[in-house]
């Protein structure tokens, strides 16, 4: 090597590293303990532009990957709701212009697209997500940028955020009604089967606590990863345990493998029925097996007789690319856009802080297909009716049990004395 190149190398290397160091030091911002309350929120505040006759909203759903089968429907129904609202004059007189993004069933992608929608597209609010993992990826980003996220799927509760509105059920609106139903049927033994991720794990922790209070014995608990379909050995344990009922918190296509193993093992709905919290009208016909006679716990069923349900079903059936059946998560997504419209109109502004203030000050309601829901302005969840349906031969659900009134959302289960206070405290502390 020549001496010129050597000197040049040293020069360039020193230059590059020196520049890097200088920039890095110049770039230092707030440190832990500094008052940084407004550090992030200021970035997004000035970006949303509603001065024209449109308002931009972001739809964030997995259009590719394993969850696409479910989330495409949510995306579609959001488009339908936007079209309906636009036909009715928009929100505060402004037409919705939506930006559709693909979460690709990949949680870091959900985080990246949330940031893109809020800082590049400057949307006023984001609607979407399905898995709890996707919501947990979005949460820190909307909190950092002070954005709004509307989440439409039933979930494990024990969460609240000033930047998220939850239009699906929390545990006391789906899991607890299911347990009440089982108790009313005189169930004595229960087997828990779930996918191995945050929702089933947390739901089952709650089920075990409540079962102890109800006098129901948990005779087994099995988990299989979300993307695995083989349930043979786990179902063999169920067959051996002979429970009165199986509580199924499996999500997605793993249900197909579970149902197959269930019938292969000679189990039947007459002797060992299943109650599911993830199988709805869309999924029932896709199980690859007759599932008639099994149960599901939801707030909305297509078979519900409410004033607004027939119109919702009719609009959906007529909508391009629709699946033809309505289900709970898509109904909750439909609610989310109308709830946002009601919030903005109560606030008279698209500003996030104004919307949150309006949620606290006003009683926000919407005549949803599941009935008239009311927003809780403090915890950002909505009241819902509890329903248990039994699958009939048409893969529709016959309503066999209903809560006597709309259930107020209680994400931290504060109204339930069997939920230990020290666990609640640990959870709220950890949530910061």
């Amino acid at each position, binding site marked *: 090597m020549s001496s010129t190149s050597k000197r040049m190398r040293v020069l360039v290397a020193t230059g590059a*590293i020196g520049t890097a160091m200088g920039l890095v030091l110049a770039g230092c911002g707030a440190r*832990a303990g500094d008052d940084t309350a407004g550090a992030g929120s200021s*970035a997004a505040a000035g970006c949303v532009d509603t001065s024209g006759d449109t308002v931009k909203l972001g739809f964030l759903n997995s259009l590719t990957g394993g969850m696409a089968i479910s989330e495409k429907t949510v995306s579609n129904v959001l488009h339908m709701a936007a079209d309906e609202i636009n036909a009715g004059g928009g929100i505060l007189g402004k037409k919705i212009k939506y930006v559709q993004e693909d979460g690709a069933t990949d*949680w*870091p992608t959900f*985080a990246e697209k949330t940031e893109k929608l809020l800082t590049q597209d400057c949307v006023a609010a984001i609607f979407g997500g399905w898995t709890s993992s996707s919501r947990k990826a979005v949460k820190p980003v909307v909190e*950092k940028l002070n954005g709004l996220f509307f989440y439409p799927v039933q979930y494990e509760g024990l969460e609240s955020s000033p930047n998220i509105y939850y239009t699906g059920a929390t545990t006391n609106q789906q899991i607890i009604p299911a347990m009440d139903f089982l108790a009313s049927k005189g169930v004595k033994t229960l087997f828990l089967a779930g996918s191995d991720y945050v929702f089933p794990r947390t739901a089952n922790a709650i089920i075990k606590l409540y079962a102890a209070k109800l006098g129901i014995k948990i005779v087994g608990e099995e988990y299989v990863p979300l993307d695995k379909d083989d349930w043979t050995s786990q179902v063999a344990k169920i067959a051996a345990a002979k429970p009165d009922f199986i509580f199924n918190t499996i999500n997605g296509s793993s249900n197909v493998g579970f149902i197959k193993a269930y019938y292969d093992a000679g189990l039947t709905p007459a002797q060992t029925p299943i109650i599911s919290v993830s199988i709805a009208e869309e999924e029932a016909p896709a199980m690859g097996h007759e599932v008639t006679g099994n149960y599901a716990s939801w707030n909305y069923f297509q078979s519900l007789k409410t004033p607004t349900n027939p119109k919702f079903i009719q609009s959906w059936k007529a909508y391009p690319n629709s699946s033809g059946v309505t289900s709970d998560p898509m109904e909750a997504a439909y609610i989310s856009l109308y709830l946002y419209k009601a919030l903005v109109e109560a606030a008279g502004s698209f500003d996030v802080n104004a919307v949150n203030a309006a949620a606290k000050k006003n009683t926000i309601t919407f005549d949803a297909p599941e009935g008239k829901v009311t927003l809780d302005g403090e915890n950002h969840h909505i009241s819902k009716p509890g329903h248990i349906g039994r699958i009939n031969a048409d893969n529709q659900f016959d309503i066999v049990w209903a809560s006597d009134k709309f259930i107020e959302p209680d994400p931290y289960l504060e109204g339930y004395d069997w939920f230990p206070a020290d666990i609640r405290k640990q959870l709220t502390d950890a949530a910061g």
Partner: protein
Amino acid sequence: MTKKPWISLGGIGVFAVLLLAVAPLVLTDHWLNNLGKYCCWAIAAVGIGLAWGRGGMLVMGQGVFFALGAYSMAMHLTLETAGDRIPGFMVLYDPLAPLPVFWEPFRSAGFTLLAIVLLPVIVAGALGYALFKRRVKGAYFAILSQALAVALAVLISSTIRETGGDTGLSDFKYFFGFVLNDPANRQMVYLIAAGLLIVCLLAVWQFYRSRFGELLIATRDAEERVRFLGYDPANVKLVAFVVSALMASIGGALFVPIVGIITPAEIGAAASILMIAGVALGGRASLFGPALGAIAVGWGQSSLGSTWPDGWTYILGLLFIVVILFLPNGLSSLPARFTGRARRTPVEQPTPAIAAAELEEVRS
């Protein structure tokens, strides 16, 4: 390249100015953060270029080392955010359980930084020693490394209480005492990533022009002959493999504060193959090819993936096929093709690693 080292060095200089000075000025916060993420993949890609492009080891499981760095960093940031409490996700699964023992040392910033450097060196060192001394190579090595990445991803997915499982680790508030939400600090993290990418490029540049670089290529192209000359090819390959593992770990460690979340999907088979794809597209044996390829694939994912969610993977696949068929040395060999100055220097000879290995097996 071998004849005019200062051209490459000048290239690194230009690249450094673009990444460290121009990008922060012209890009929005969002795109700068995205570029930071691509830089993390690029750091891992530079290592793959060294191991695969120059060393002929098709490292299909760099996600393993990416994970070692990423999870070390993520555990530290999670604990830093949680303070003296138990991290939130653990409370959710098992409210009253104590912190797992292996998390405890990651409270220390020093231990974390040491782990990011030493863990991949130890793991790759032990693995490489066992494999290369037994002369495991070619497709067998590739399959083994890929299987490790799959196994690790499954392990993390199934230990939900200890590692966050499929949901991963996220919601970090601080980065070694700096508030992560502050745009100035995020720029700082970007600059660290971009700066380390430049350092890695300088390191491999020095490697490639040293005697070791020559020996590595010799080992790739004719391992038996190198052995007859009195060198131990296993040691040569071991060094390249360990260095590439270290780079993957550094890339993974910086990925965490930049992206804000790490999940098993980012380290499994698909992610590991995507890292390889970037390197192949860019040109595996060239100095800049792997880094530029990784940045291009990352950019494609963010921007084309937005425009055509369904089409992007097909575009990438098609591009991959076209490059393998018509440009075995990657897109970085394109200029030379056009100007007709395709110098057939030893380093740029199209010698697919597996084919060479198979040839040797036939010979022996």
